[in-house]
């Protein structure tokens, strides 16, 4: 009887330990469908940061003696990964809207909540912001933007201060990148 309780406790412990990263990974989005846009797009921005690379970047951000950088470092202190895809096309309607809808469909899964959405007839703009929570803890954010000539998807794993990040747009050493206006090559956009 005693061994039965012992094994149950160990199994429960393993479930908790192994279940936590699984929950965190749940906030990730599959970008497979977007890869076919690379050949059509005029400009492509692809950023994948997690694990050791993210740790290095955080370390640098803390060491940089800049008050704005310190704010951002605090805002992303719990960040576990960030993945960005931006495709800019030379002409309108060069991409298939179904590819973007597939991304939006992923975000209809349980746990994801649409925090904000913007619809504008100008440039046929659609912006959706989704968040995922585990209890009170934010585990992920997704931003999906589609315009006449631009598709952008951002997937953040882990908690992040969205309000502060929105305020920091164009500030600090973070350059404001306006892909539509064609000024995306300023700053660190490589």
């Amino acid at each position: 009887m005693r061994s039965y309780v012992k094994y149950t406790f160990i199994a429960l412990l393993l479930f908790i330990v192994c279940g936590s990263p699984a929950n965190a990974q749940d906030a990730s989005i599959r970008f497979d469908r977007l890869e076919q846009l690379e050949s059509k797009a005029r400009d492509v921005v692809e950023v994948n940061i997690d694990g050791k690379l993210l740790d290095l970047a955080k370390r640098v951000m803390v060491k940089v003696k800049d008050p704005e950088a310190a704010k951002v470092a605090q805002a992303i202190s719990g960040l576990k990964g960030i993945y960005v895809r931006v495709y800019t096309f030379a002409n309108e309607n060069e991409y298939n809207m179904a590819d973007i809808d597939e991304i939006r469909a992923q975000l209809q899964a349980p746990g994801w909540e649409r925090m904000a959405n913007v619809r504008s007839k100008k440039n046929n703009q659609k912006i959706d912001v989704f968040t995922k929570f585990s209890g009170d803890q934010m585990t992920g954010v997704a931003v999906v933007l589609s315009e006449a000539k631009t598709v952008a998807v951002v997937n953040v794993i882990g908690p992040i201060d969205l309000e502060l990040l929105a305020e920091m747009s164009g500030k600090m050493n973070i350059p404001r990148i306006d892909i539509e206006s064609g000024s995306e090559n300023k700053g660190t956009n490589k």
Partner: protein
Amino acid sequence: MKEDYLWDKTGSDESVEKLENALRIFSHDNDAAFAVPVIATAPQKWSLFKGFRPLLFAPASVVIAAIAWGAWMQASRITGPSDVGFASVSPIESPAAPVIDKFEPAVEPPPAPAPQIIKAAYRPRLKKRTERTVLRTIPAEGPKPEFTKEEIYAYDQLVLALSITSDKLGQVREKAIGENNNSEEK
């Protein structure tokens, strides 16, 4: 013979007459009127402090004491206990300089230090203070952190990702604020 010559010159007294004749050269003219010698004095000017001069010594001594005390305090502040050592300084340093170090408030109030001594103590103080300021500012600035190529690459990637994210979030925020303003206007 009358013997009163000594008293009223009646009669004669040879010895007295001889003595009179010997001392006649010192006698005065009996006919001249007696006059008290008059000493001519210049008219004195009237002065307010004439009668109080002794009293002026008190404030004067206080002023002198205050000046001496101030000079002593300055000398003791300059040469007093500090982190600046005399031994390491100055070509001007003379054998007399360490004596200033030994000044103690309880001991007899020293006279105002000679200007030469003050200079000798003050110059190195200024020099040391400047050096100390430099030493303070260098650690405050600190060495600039050096990053590896991997760190810089990771930072650039993160900044790029965050810039795109914040830009998109900023767009949503602006739209939301614009919508709120429009609804308020209506």
